[in-house]
């Protein structure tokens, strides 16, 4: 097998080479400038390569060399707080090397080779270890980075030493194999796990509309339609800040440069509310904007996913955000059309659905090789062209993911935040998560949620009547239903990301708040039966107090006080 060949044809990012016989998805170096590319098709003697960089000026006859290995991600200490492009080149390093623009032919390793890390062994000489097991730890900023036995390595620890090492130095010898703190893993191959669990624990985000109404399970996948200025960015930041995932991987895939800059400038300033440290300390950002090479965009989601899996294997809960998967799908379409493949729907390749599900299937909560538990929850933004949800990317995504958070332009215009619509969103995890909620929040929590959804559903039906005949024509009990629905929307679903108290709502508080609204509803019904006037029921002072209780510093006491007030107020109305 020859490792060196030459270019036969160049047409945009697709290059054909002859004289090499690589494996599918091997990484090759193309041309005199050694542009990085990946084998995507083999036809007879011809090897078709997608090149991650601009190919202007490259000509037939230039050399092509096969590295013999697929596109890999470098995994080890130093990933956190990094900012990478789609093929894991650190953007700050690229800036130092090439200036403000990204030129081609510059390679930069994903992990810093110079930096020393303090390695603390967790096993000792003579111990029997297996793949995926923790052999030591390193403090990566404020996170504990667990060094794992590389896949396919098993045996007795021949040697292990504490001390300060860079990522390439040997820290241990296991079964005759030198082990350093860095692993390489092919990005298109899922990292192995021992067992995948049924997702039955919610990813608690502290956002009421998500946790109570449309929960995402740890290890599950959700889709948000984004790109309409509906507050997608704020929602994602809230999730990054508050969800009970230890590690955040954010992939900016084919989005606007200025938007990415916003993320890059804001994330380092965001404070991790749990530790007070910068949120960047537990975040990895991948930025491949729309004008950066399309092949690297296609690879970016895999690079991000591989990094997420690596932290999962240490036993962490990871949340991965891909913004936007539609741009990724378009990259596939573009490359497919360059390959002159037969197109499927709307020009997308026929394997679109397959690739999307392969990607989302890498989300899971699982038992790692070392028997600890980790998870990856995926939140994928989709950008349907013309807002048309029937287009192939959205449809294929919705077939796979089980949670849909429908950000709604009308709600945004009405300043209802988070602008997640309660009627069009859904979560198919609600049944699976019932058990957790009953055991960990309150026995009647699932019932409460159903009650609230029912009221909101009724409201939308009643609204249709109101539009025809006006609200005055409704019977009293329906007026109360409308009022209670309004309370659920304004008090419970609306949440102010910029308010110190309201920005994060623990499960117990979500429950208490919902219960208070329910209490008002029940008391109102009783008062009506007892003959009280609707106007009086709407005017009880405790109702006003309830509306603003969520912003109070002493919120828990306030809720108790409101609870008492409700009773005394309604006692006055004869209940």
């Amino acid at each position, binding site marked *: 097998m020859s490792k060196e060949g030459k270019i036969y044809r160049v047409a945009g990012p697709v290059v054909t080479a002859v004289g090499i016989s690589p494996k599918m998805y091997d990484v090759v170096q193309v041309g005199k400038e050694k542009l990085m590319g990946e084998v995507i098709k083999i036809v007879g003697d011809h090897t078709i390569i997608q090149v991650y960089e601009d190919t202007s000026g490259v000509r037939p006859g230039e050399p092509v060399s096969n590295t013999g290995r697929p596109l890999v991600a470098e995994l080890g200490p130093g990933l956190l707080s990094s900012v990478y492009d789609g093929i894991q080149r650190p953007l700050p390093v690229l800036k130092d090397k090439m200036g403000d623009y990204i030129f081609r032919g510059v390679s930069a390793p994903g992990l810093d080779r110079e930096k020393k890390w303090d390695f603390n062994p967790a096993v000792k000489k003579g111990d029997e270890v297996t793949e995926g097991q923790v052999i030591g730890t390193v403090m990566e900023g404020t996170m504990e980075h667990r060094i794992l036995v590389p896949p396919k390595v098993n045996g007795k620890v021949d040697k292990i030493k504490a001390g300060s090492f860079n990522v390439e130095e040997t820290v241990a010898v296991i079964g005759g194999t030198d082990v350093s703190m860095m692993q390489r893993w092919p990005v298109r191959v899922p990292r192995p796990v021992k067992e995948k669990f049924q997702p039955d624990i919610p990813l608690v985000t502290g956002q009421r509309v998500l946790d109570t109404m449309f929960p995402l399970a740890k290890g599950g996948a959700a889709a948000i339609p984004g790109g309409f200025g509906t507050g997608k960015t704020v929602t994602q930041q809230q999730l990054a800040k508050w969800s009970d995932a230890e590690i955040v991987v954010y992939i900016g895939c084919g989005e606007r*440069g200025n938007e990415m800059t916003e993320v890059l400038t804001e994330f380092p300033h965001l404070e991790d509310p749990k530790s007070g440290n910068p949120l960047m300390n537990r975040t990895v950002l991948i930025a491949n904007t729309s004008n950066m090479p399309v092949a690297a965009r296609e690879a970016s989601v895999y690079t991000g996913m591989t990094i997420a899996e690596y932290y999962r294997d240490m036993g962490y809960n990871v949340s991965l955000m891909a913004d936007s998967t539609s741009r990724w799908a378009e990259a596939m379409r573009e490359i497919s059309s360059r390959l002159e493949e037969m197109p499927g729907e*709307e020009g997308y390749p026929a394997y679109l659905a397959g690739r999307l599900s392969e990607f989302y299937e890498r989300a899971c909560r699982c038992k790692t090789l070392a028997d600890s538990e980790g998870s990856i929850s995926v939140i994928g933004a989709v950008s349907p062209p013309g807002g048309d949800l029937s287009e192939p990317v959205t449809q294929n995504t919705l077939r796979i993911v089980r949670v849909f958070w429908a950000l709604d332009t009308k709600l945004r215009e009405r300043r209802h935040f988070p602008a997640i619509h309660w009627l069009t969103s859904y979560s198919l995890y609600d049944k699976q998560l019932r058990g957790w909620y009953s055991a960990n929040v309150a026995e009647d929590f699932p019932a409460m949620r159903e009650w609230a959804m029912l009221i909101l559903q009724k409201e939308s039906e009643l609204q249709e009547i109101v539009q025809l005949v006006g609200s005055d024509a409704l019977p009293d009990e329906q007026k109360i239903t409308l009022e209670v629905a309004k309370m659920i929307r304004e008090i419970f679903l609306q949440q102010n990301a910029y308010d110190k108290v309201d920005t994060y709502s623990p499960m117990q508080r979500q429950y208490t708040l919902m219960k208070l609204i329910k209490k008002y509803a029940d008391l109102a019904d009783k008062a009506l039966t007892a003959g009280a006037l609707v106007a009086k029921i709407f005017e009880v002072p405790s109702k006003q107090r309830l509306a603003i209780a969520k912003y109070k510093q002493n919120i828990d006491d306030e809720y108790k006080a409101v609870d008492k007030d409700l009773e005394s107020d309604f006692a006055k109305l004869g209940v």
Partner: protein
Amino acid sequence: MSNVSKEYKTISEIAGPLVFVKKTEPISYQELVSVKLSDGSTKRGQVLDSSDDMVVVQIFEGTAGIDRNATVRFLGETMKMPVSKDMLGRVLSGSGEPLDGGPAITPEKKLDIVGAAINPWARDSPADFIQTGISTIDGMNTLVRGQKLPIFSGSGLPHNDLAMQIARQAKVRGADEDFAVVFVAMGITNEEKQTFMKEFERTGALKNAVVFLNLADDPAIERIVTPRLGLTTAEYMAFELDMQVLVILTDLTNYCEALRQIGAAREEVPGRRGYPGYMYTDLAQLYERAGRIKGKKGSITQIPILSMPGDDITHPIPDLSGYITEGQIVMSRELHRAGIYPPVNVSSSLSRLMSAGVKRTRADHQNVSDQLYAAYAEGKDLRGLVAIVGKESLSEKDRRLLDFADLFEDRVVRQGHEEDRSIEDTLAIAWDILRSLSKDQLNRIKQEFQEKYLKS
């Protein structure tokens, strides 16, 4: 790389704008080509596909007159744009040749026209408010430096007038900096060109502008190159000469048609409506050349104009553009018919960077804008209702909203072609018409602003 350029007489096929050349030495992708015709004239082109057997060349000026005996010369370099400070005030063709009878440009530098992507890490967030003097933009869809804000228009609408008015009036207040306009015309008619040029001369704006003209009867293929020449010039002026550059690109629809034409000639698998599958990436490579860079004084702000075929905003051209640009200004045929200039439909317009812009204007700006949007939207909804039930059956409050919508179009939207409103003027007009609403209808405006501005 050899300096000797290679000549061939081995054309094997000519199809549409493409020429296929056989048996060449290795030719690089995107290399420039010059073709000498039998009558002695030359045409220029660029390599689209290069292999050992065959090189595909796209001819900028069209293939008319090329025969099998034409001589093809490969120039050994990719397309470069000569740039210099003296370019201000010049009028150039769609392929960069002087059209104004002036001398060729003496280059200080020759830059690759494809342009590399700005490293996201090196970008600076757009922030400075640009006052265009147009209320619907300044007040409600604020433009900031480094933003790309397209005008989505339709045939027969006065988007060119609006673009020229913006070019004339745009400024960052309180800043005394070098300002330049790069005007890139793609496939505009001769008549439109006359109007633009007259306008440039009349207002004296030409001395701060570089104009690239690819007219409707110029080869369509050249249109692929023209915006890249313009943007390369803009990058040079912004990031090497520290100038604040406004780039106006018109009309992107013609550009995309040219892309489709080449795609079809190459027999590529088409995407939506026959446009090539890579159109998103291609457009991104134009639009994303707007922005600011950390540590550099200059900036590039883009106002691309595109006419939506059949006024259809979901057509691939406006749709893909909308996903790359930071908002859009949408022109309305209804307002135009009603005789309102500029006919900006604020309801579907959006500036994604507005929140950055309003930080530099006045504290009440965001509130006022929100209120205008909300009240105008309600007023417009009521128009539909009035058509059915009549104005009499509306409540007092609704009648106010209905009148407000008319007032809004007449006072805020409508303005003169020469009217340059400061942001204070715009806000004053807004407060003036907001007074026609009752106090409890001003639910989007903080009490303190109501107290300060409502009375005076």
